[in-house]
């Protein structure tokens, strides 16, 4: 799992009040509502599955399966992992963002990009790099190390964006009120980073719950790895389902916690005028330590995985470049990625359209439901889809449409967030202008609305593609036999300790991800609180 939903849930303040009020009172087209409701209901399948399974299992059996030492161990591992990793990610992410955005760090623009780049390295590739360097790496220590290095960019990118668009006048005001640099940081800057902190913490937490490959490789057991193990050995037994329901409980708890902590505060700039660029802070004698810190971070998070992937690629020589297999895997990845991205964007469209043009409690409910259902780990979605397919839709079991559906569910928010901000940039006035110039509503929709939302849709599609290319658990469980994506092929080879053979796949995955990571980074820098 990688770049994921760095794009946090949008504030609903984009559409102009005038238009929104007028539109809010008119009725949305029935077809759009039907489509949006259908998509939302479909995304409720995994949650419904977990609840149904827990009820069907019955209290006694469920209790027996949940309250046992094994679950206790998993619980300890998972909680310890979250409690160690999340704070570390926040400290490292905010610290790095502050250094590159607000200080005279030498080469700040270069570091700004380099420190975001680890997002392009899937966590399981990171894990592979570390375990092939230090074979004894395992347990909570190893898990935390790899998690922090893989996921701190989730906090870093949104914190950097927030720091970048924070009005320097506030810092100047603090200075004029007698606050020194440090007190300004803690009393003015840090409180305003609350949204990136809580949002980033949620994302890191959800990734930790969902990650399978990275932890499995270092034999660190969490709920996700345990469910996968159960499923592999007993095939969809009640035990796996009960573990899944505990996992889902964790997810929901985390979402609840975040929404409580986030509160209703908005940290927008008050007043009008153009926000200036702040004067960067001179580091003085801290210059070298700061430079050393970012260098070490970049080396650990980017240098180690890249170096190892290259090392193993070179060690393997020409023979690891098994032409036909690599081409076959690449083509299949492209197929699944593109088809999945297309379907996801299409399914997200009615939801985004309603959310932008007809904001009401109902459209907010539809939209919000999708953020929750898509927060569930891939393993739960996969389990649910397998069960539903076997019991009710047998022909779909291990079929391409089922995998694509799972991808769409998992990555819907990426498309939704992008489409939403894209559509918000097509004000109703433009459509009306087109109609008053003699274009029919359909022609207007195609020539104005779709045309203008196209870049955002493409951006969303790219992020969905990236998610699918790096997806492991749902692909392993759901894809038809014989299907290999870059991620699954890499997984199979590296599980067999064929580090050289796996290296080319890791390399291609990273190369595929880099442009998208760059896109994500620039997008977050531009998008001002959308």
């Amino acid at each position, binding site marked *: 799992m990688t770049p994921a939903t760095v794009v946090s849930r949008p504030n609903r303040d984009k559409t102009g009040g005038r238009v929104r009020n*007028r539109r809010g*009172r*008119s009725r949305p087209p029935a077809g759009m509502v039907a489509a949006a409701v259908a998509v939302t209901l479909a995304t409720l399948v995994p949650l419904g599955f977990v609840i149904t399974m827990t009820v069907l299992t019955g209290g006694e059996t469920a209790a027996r399966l949940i309250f046992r030492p094994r679950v206790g161990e998993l619980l300890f591992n998972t909680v310890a992992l979250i409690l160690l990793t999340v704070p570390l990610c926040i400290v490292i992410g905010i610290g790095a963002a502050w250094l590159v955005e607000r200080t005279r760090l030498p080469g700040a623009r270069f570091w700004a990009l380099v420190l975001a780049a680890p997002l392009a390295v899937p966590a399981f590739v990171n894990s592979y790099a570390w375990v092939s360097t230090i074979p004894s790496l395992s347990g909570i220590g190893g898990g935390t190390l790899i998690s922090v290095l893989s996921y701190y960019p989730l906090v870093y990118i949104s914190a950097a964006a927030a720091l970048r668009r924070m009005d320097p006048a506030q810092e100047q005001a603090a200075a004029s009120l007698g606050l020194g640099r440090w007190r300004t940081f803690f009393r003015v800057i840090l409180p305003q980073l609350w949204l990136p902190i809580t949002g980033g913490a949620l994302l890191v937490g959800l990734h930790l719950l969902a990650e399978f490959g990275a932890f499995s490789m270092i034999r660190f057991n969490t709920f996700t790895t345990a469910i996968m193990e159960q499923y592999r050995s007993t095939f969809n037994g009640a035990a796996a389902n009960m573990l899944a329901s505990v996992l889902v409980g964790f997810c929901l708890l985390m979402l609840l916690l975040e929404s409580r902590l986030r509160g209703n505060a908005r940290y927008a700039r008050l007043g009008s005028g153009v926000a200036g660029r702040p004067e960067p802070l001179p580091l003085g004698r801290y210059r070298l330590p700061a430079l050393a810190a970012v260098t070490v971070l970049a080396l650990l998070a980017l240098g180690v995985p890249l170096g190892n992937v290259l090392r193993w690629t070179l060690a393997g020589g020409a023979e690891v470049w098994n032409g036909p297999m690599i081409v076959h895997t690449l083509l299949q990845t492209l197929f699944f990625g593109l088809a999945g991205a297309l379907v996801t964007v299409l399914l997200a469209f009615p939801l985004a359209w309603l959310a932008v043009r007809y904001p009401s409690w109902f459209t907010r409910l539809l939209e919000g439901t999708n953020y929750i259902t898509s927060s569930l780990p891939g393993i739960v979605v996969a389990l649910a889809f397998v069960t539903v397919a076997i019991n009710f839709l047998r022909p779909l079991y291990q079929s391409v449409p089922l995998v694509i559906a799972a991808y769409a569910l998992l990555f819907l928010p990426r498309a939704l967030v992008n489409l939403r901000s894209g559509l918000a940039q097509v*004000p109703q*006035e*433009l459509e*009306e*202008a*087109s*109609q*008053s*110039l*003699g*274009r*029919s*509503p359909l022609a*207007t929709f195609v020539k*104005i609305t779709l*045309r*203008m939302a196209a870049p955002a849709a493409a951006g969303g599609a790219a992020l969905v593609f990236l998610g699918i290319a790096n997806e492991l658990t749902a692909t392993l469980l759901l894809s038809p036999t014989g299907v290999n994506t870059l991620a699954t092929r890499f997984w199979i080879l590296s599980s067999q300790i064929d580090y050289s053979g796996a290296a080319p796949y890791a390399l291609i995955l990273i190369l595929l991800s880099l442009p998208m990571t760059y896109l994500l980074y620039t997008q977050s820098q531009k998008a001002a609180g959308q």
Partner: protein
Amino acid sequence: MSPASADTPTPDSHLIIDKVTKSFGDTEVLRGVSLSVHRGITTAIVGPSGSGKTTLLRLIAGFEAPDSGTITLAGERVAGEGRWIPAHRRNVGYVAQDGALFPHLSVGQNIAFGLDKKKFAGRAAVDARVAGLLEMVSLEPGYARRRPDELSGGQQQRVALARALAREPELMLLDEPFSALDAGLRVATRKAVARTLAEAGVTTILVTHDQGEALSFADQVAVMRRGELAQIGNPFVVYTRPSDRETAEFLGDAVILDADLQGSLATCALGGIPVRRPTCQGKVHLMLRPEQIRIVPDGQIKGTVLETDFFGPEITVRLRLHPDGRGSSDLDGETITIRHWNATLAKPGSELSLRVIGEGVAFPA
């Protein structure tokens, strides 16, 4: 002046709106609006925000349908009584508040967006037409290649106007098109737009909340309030002889005094003031515009300056009037606010002589 003399349709009426109503949910936005607009003239619909003026404009454009009532455009029913012609088939030009230029198209492509492809076949014909339209709004032909975001607000509005003019609409609707511009630019753009539209001979309806803009722009002013048209008439008449006190105070500063009206002479703290065609008698509120009250070197009516507010070219003076025939020690005199150009004349505490020019308007007390 009857409040709605101009809304009687005549065969020359270009646009006839008849008893139109519109509600959004529980909110009644238009409550039976009737308005008739002659071909070639400029009408300003003015009213406070939330009065329903923009909704009326959107009904004329065809962006919304009325709940009841009819809209007839150039003899053709476009809305009401089961008929509904959508916006793109009405040939009504529309310029929105912020211009609504398509950001993904160049200025030239924006202007050519609505051009009839049959009439303007080929690049050269389109380019020539675009250049002609740019000239109409006083922009160089070179602007055609620019992007909308490279233009100033005023230029964007002029491009939006050129784009709307490209299809040679018979009716042009302007929805507060100058309100987003800063003060200096607003006047210049308003004048340029008015000139262009007058030269093109297009029937124009302007919606605005700015009284000054409405009075200076239009041949006919319609005052809208709470979903109804309170008064329709030419700007001078509406300003000097408003139909009620609310309209009077909305259209500009007003001095309101208690008066006793007998026949056509009202007696008040400012003396006897003539009232044309009074609609009531006895105890009334008399309305005068501040500029009707002049400071004179000598006269019967006096007032004491309470405070002044200096604006540069003029000064507003708040005065307490000395009731007729009584001493200046009386503290119950009415206070009025007037304008004057000479700041040195009016120092707080000083006594001034006043004279009223022209007629007053009487409203029932």
